[in-house]
């Protein structure tokens, strides 16, 4: 039975009540308690640092060569916090409300409220750590607005907010390493979870440099291993981002929640060919000033600059006059797909739309000319001034676009297309962030908890750091208080033997299949199935086909994959094989979940369930729940449901018109 352990009482008091009543661990006992943290992104690094500060003995694991490289580093736009520094009416309640609404009423109220409550502390903590946030001339912190909200609550550091926040958490982590409280295991990959007497007690990890299989015991294990967007092969995730840690935990009994909730980000650089290895995001902040359009004629071949205004379709402004180009990500993505599918796409592939800065350049140019007192500035002068302003605001993004495409976005409109960006689904966790396996926690993107069916911009960084800095330090104590008499975990326990053997057997098996096709070949095939049939729009027929195709592909993979090299050395192909093997199972579950959820909500759009105007149609009466999938072995799952109870917010159909 699903028990989400939401504290009783009024919503706004739940977290403070919890904090003042949860169990604590005495400092002398903390020293003897070991905690494993898998993944060193925002959630992992902040949790590891904070738990070590509290006195626990922490071990961190990451597959990269340094904790600082985790993919949180790539987040561009910003981090939300209900500081109301701009005096524009923001509050904890509004941030909470926007997040629940943005998530299309599929998130847990209590978790989201807690997130909004601690959001302000995150900013304070980061500033104290020396994170160089953008500032105003008066020396105070600067804010901007970000997709889908009407207040300015986003803190940022140019287009590198994720980098700066991660380096802040990483610096805190490094400090604890130097103090001997954290032991780092970099270039290590968790390959299995060890469960003893129903509790998470350690992991099996592979040293990626030597190939050695290692056993690590702990009183609790935290999975902060990020999302599973790479199921799609092409995504904005890093090449190494993977679901293996979470998936192994799932196979050991942790429920996987809402796997079909994936976020397709509307502003990415389009695919240029079969060689494409990943997709690059262009920050959502570009939608603040850019206008999105396609030609009104199908199969348009003219240069975009030669297409007159009246032959352009600014489809977001047309369909959503109130929010225009700033509609939430899921809405913007689907609208782009709709236009391209209808034959209005642009570029060589016809799978792209224009993001145009011409009018922003003109608008900024005029303002700037006024400021400088140039009353009869020529068109050229205005354009020049406008480009300067745009360069100042978005220069790094424009440069990046030019490097990748070879086109100058100051002169020609950028081409963009949606791409897989984030996964709202993940391991099911209760209010304490504990999975259905006692002692196993999931933080950040690895869990499902706060974003419902769609995540708002600048909320992922907030959630990762909230979980790591301000939630887990309290909630883990509530569990570990019961573990103070558990001695150091014995890694000679038969459960370790068994897990290690299984890991070794699988690796051995990969090397010995000696098939004919590379791991990437299978990964690309899987990606195509997922993108076409479980991507921005899904339908029953397609999902059923996808499930069948994935099963066949998986069978072929296990018969015909070619992994060269050996198991006792640095072998990136072997690493990839393990990750793709897991994606091949997770992909199937995603399709099953998408099939089961016969409604449209947030990032999950079922073509059978839309309004007459083509908008997402929720069925709250049937699907106001979290779908929690329990692995029953042999590629079978059973579904359990956690009903979502809205005590404060009354769900409505989202309307951005």
């Amino acid at each position, binding site marked *: 039975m699903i028990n989400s352990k939401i504290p009783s009482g009024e919503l706004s008091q739940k977290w403070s009540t919890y904090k003042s009543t949860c169990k604590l661990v005495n400092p002398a006992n903390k020293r003897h308690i070991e905690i494993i943290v898998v993944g060193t992104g925002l959630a992992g690094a902040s949790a590891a640092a*904070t738990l070590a*500060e509290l006195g626990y003995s922490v071990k961190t694991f990451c597959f990269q*060569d*340094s*904790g*600082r*490289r*985790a*993919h949180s*580093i*790539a987040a561009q736009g910003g981090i939300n916090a209900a*500081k109301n520094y701009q005096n524009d009416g923001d509050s904890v309640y509004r941030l909470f409300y926007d997040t629940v609404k943005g998530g299309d009423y599929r998130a847990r109220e209590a978790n989201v409220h807690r997130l909004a409550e601690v959001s302000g*502390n995150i*900013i*304070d*903590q980061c*500033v*104290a*750590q020396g994170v*160089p*946030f953008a*500032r105003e*001339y*008066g020396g*105070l912190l600067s804010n901007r607005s970000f997709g889908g909200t009407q207040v300015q609550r986003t803190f940022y*550091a*140019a287009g*590198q907010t*994720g*980098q*700066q926040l991660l380096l802040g958490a990483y*610096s*805190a982590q490094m*400090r604890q*390493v*130097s103090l001997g409280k954290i032991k780092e295991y970099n270039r290590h990959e968790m390959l299995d979870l060890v469960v003893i007497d129903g509790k998470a007690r350690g992991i099996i990890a592979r040293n990626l440099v030597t190939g050695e299989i290692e056993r690590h015991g702990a009183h609790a294990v935290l999975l902060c291993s990020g999302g599973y967007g790479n199921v799609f092969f092409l995504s*904005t995730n*890093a*090449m*190494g981002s993977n679901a293996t840690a979470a998936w192994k935990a799932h196979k050991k009994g942790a429920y996987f929640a809402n796997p079909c909730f994936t976020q397709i980000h509307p502003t990415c650089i389009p695919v*240029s*060919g079969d*060689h494409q*290895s*990943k997709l*690059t995001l262009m920050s959502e902040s570009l939608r603040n000033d850019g206008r999105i359009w396609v030609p009104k004629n199908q199969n348009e071949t003219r240069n975009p600059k030669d297409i007159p205004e009246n032959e352009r379709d600014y489809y977001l402004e047309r369909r959503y006059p109130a929010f225009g180009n700033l509609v939430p990500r899921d809405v913007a993505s689907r609208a782009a797909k709709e236009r391209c599918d209808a034959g209005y796409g642009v570029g060589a592939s016809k799978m792209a739309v224009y993001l145009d800065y011409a009018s922003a350049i003109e608008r900024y140019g005029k303002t700037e000319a006024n400021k400088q007192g140039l009353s009869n500035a020529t068109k050229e002068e205005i354009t020049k001034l406008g480009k300067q302003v745009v360069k100042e605001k978005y220069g790094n993004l424009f*440069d*990046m676009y030019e*490097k*990748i*495409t*070879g086109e100058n976005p100051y002169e020609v409109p950028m081409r963009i297309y949606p791409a897989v960006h984030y996964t709202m689904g993940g391991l099911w966790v209760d209010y304490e962030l504990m999975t259905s396996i006692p002692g196993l926690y999931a933080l950040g993107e690895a869990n499902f908890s706060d974003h419902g069916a769609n995540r708002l911009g600048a909320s992922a960084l907030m959630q990762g750091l909230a979980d790591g*800095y301000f939630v887990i330090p309290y909630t883990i104590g509530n569990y570990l208080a019961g573990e103070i008499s558990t001695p150091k975990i014995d890694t000679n326990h038969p459960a370790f033997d068994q897990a290690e053997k299984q890991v070794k057997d699988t690796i051995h098996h990969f090397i010995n299949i000696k098939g004919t096709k*590379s791991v*990437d070949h299978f990964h690309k095939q899987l990606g195509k199935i997922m993108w076409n049939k479980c991507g921005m729009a899904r339908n029953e027929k397609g999902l059923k086909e996808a499930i069948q195709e994935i099963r066949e592909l998986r069978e072929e993979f296990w018969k015909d994959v*070619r992994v*060269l090299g050996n198991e006792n*050395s*640095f072998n*990136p192909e072997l690493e990839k094989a393990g990750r793709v093997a897991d994606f091949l199972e997770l992909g199937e579950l995603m399709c099953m979940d998408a099939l089961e959820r016969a409604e449209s909500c947030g990032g999950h759009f079922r073509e059978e369930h839309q309004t007459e105007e083509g908008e997402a149609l929720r069925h709250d009466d049937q699907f106001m729940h979290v779908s929690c999938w329990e692995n029953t072995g042999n590629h079978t799952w059973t579904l359990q449901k956690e009903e979502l109870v809205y005590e404060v917010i009354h769900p409505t159909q989202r309307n951005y018109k």
Partner: protein
Amino acid sequence: MEHKTLNLKLRVWRQSDSNTQGGFVTYDANNISTEMSFLEMFDVLNEKLINEGNDPIAFDHDCREGICGMCSMYINGRAHGPWAGTTTCQLHMRAFNDGETITVEPWRAQAFPVIKDLVVDRSAFDRIQQAGGYISVNTGNAQDGNSIPINKHDADLSFAAAACIGCGACVAACKNSSAMLFTSAKVSQYALLPQGGPERKTRVLNMLNQMDKEGFGSCTNTGACEAECPKEISISNIARLNREFLNAQFSL
């Protein structure tokens, strides 16, 4: 953008592990689209090697959007290749001509031992950071973010230093294999902020000490690091580090 296909020769450093001697092997890379990134060209080559039953080339890479700092190739004598302010993953094949021979080497420095082929061990950077690249503030101790106003100019300079991605191109570019640009970027980020004040003296001394221990060379101000840094970190940060050092060493 018009695209072409290129036929190239790649001279790549192959080394099976840190204890084995390495050497160059030349490969043909044909039908390479100018739209590909440099690493995608390596993907294509590796796919071919796998199909032929040959060990693919190991190289470090992760985000492929120029921010994680994992990619690290020394291309035709240039750290991260010929484009300024660009990581290897963002370098595109438009930068090369048909028929060209491209030599690819790992970062070479005593402090960065080769793990395999083009992959090197940069954990020395982590240890430099551990020596003092942080502000000692436990979670929960912080005061309100706006209680410390910081002059925008300093905050911007601090950010420019903090933009370092820790890739190690500065070390590869430096004839002395010095890590001064990396270390100075960290020291500068904190030196420019009031939050970094209390620990500024110990920070610079400890980080420099660790840098020397790791086996990096000394700075002789050639400026090659700045020219090759994908994030265009300025060597004025090195001057700032020197200032911090003198202040820490000689003030009473």
